[in-house]
């Protein structure tokens, strides 16, 4: 069992080691037992679903798309023109990423993705969203004060750079194509992919050579 983490802010926590948490855990166990008894779900299938999202699907998939766009300008054009088809070319389409728009960060435009109504997110490409993306604070504030929100991530966007915020829907999800950092001219597509972080593909970070694993930056 993973330790719980607590944060500043008004968002309800994922519960704590209180009676409420054990009540919820018991309730979930009861529902699971009933679904299995009734043959509605297969326990092995539940394990497979959890394992898939814990170990197989994640931001490394989106990073492949970004790195490919950085080294292949024709692919990049197709990706920005029709994200859904270009991602399908790589065979990386999947559940919750059926319709994709890819938006490019440049020296003049910074894009940020949110889902104000829910927490819609391209699961097949980035995995399950982080807690901050699902938080009431992010969902409410990203659309009214994106620059302040980005500062909380340590990202100060100069006034002369336009900030565009994209509100996802259940049917249409977004991916940010971050700017390729300077000094990466000699890197291969595979090495470039290692630089691309989840937050950079949501627009909450830039791809920065100073924060990458040492074997890549050296």
């Amino acid at each position, binding site marked *: 069992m993973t330790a719980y983490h607590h*944060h500043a802010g008004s*968002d309800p926590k994922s519960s704590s080691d209180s009676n409420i948490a054990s009540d*919820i855990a018991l309730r979930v166990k009861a529902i699971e037992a*009933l679904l299995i008894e009734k043959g*509605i779900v297969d326990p092995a299938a*539940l394990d497979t679903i959890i394992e898939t999202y814990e170990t197989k699907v994640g931001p490394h998939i989106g990073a492949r798309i970004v790195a490919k766009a950085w080294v292949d300008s024709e692919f990049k054009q197709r990706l920005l023109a029709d994200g859904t088809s270009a991602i399908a070319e790589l065979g990386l389409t999947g559940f919750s990423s059926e319709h994709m728009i890819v938006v490019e960060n440049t020296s003049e435009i910074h894009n940020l993705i*949110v889902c104000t*109504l829910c927490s819609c997110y391209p699961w097949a490409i980035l995995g399950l969203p982080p807690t901050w993306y699902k938080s009431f*604070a992010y969902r409410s504030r990203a659309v009214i004060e994106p620059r302040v929100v980005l500062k909380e991530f340590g990202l100060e966007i100069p006034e002369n750079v336009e900030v565009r915020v994209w509100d996802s829907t259940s049917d249409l999800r977004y991916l940010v194509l971050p700017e390729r950092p300077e000094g990466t001219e000699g890197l291969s597509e595979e090495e470039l992919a290692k630089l691309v972080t989840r937050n950079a593909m949501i627009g909450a970070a830039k791809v920065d050579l100073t924060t990458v694993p040492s074997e890549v930056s050296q």
Partner: protein
Amino acid sequence: MNGPHDLGGMQSMGAIPIEENEPIFHSEWEAKVFAMSFATFGNFFTVDETRHASERMPPGKYLSSSYYERWLFALELLLTEHSLVSSAEIEEKIAELSQSNELS
């Protein structure tokens, strides 16, 4: 639908809760709620219905529940509405499990 889920522009929600190196799920029950929802939507009801179910959560409850608590609410609502499991069965099973926990 102008429910509590329509959060865009709402104020006073505090700082963004940024967690370094967070796990995919923060507890076993969260993982199970996710998996049971994933395994049932598509087979017994649509994903859209699941989303709508969480939007039907009473506003006060919505705003005081965590993400997977809202998923659990939606799952339970749809399982009962589609007559897959009844509320009485859930309560009976909770009582049964709670008794066997005390005995063990």
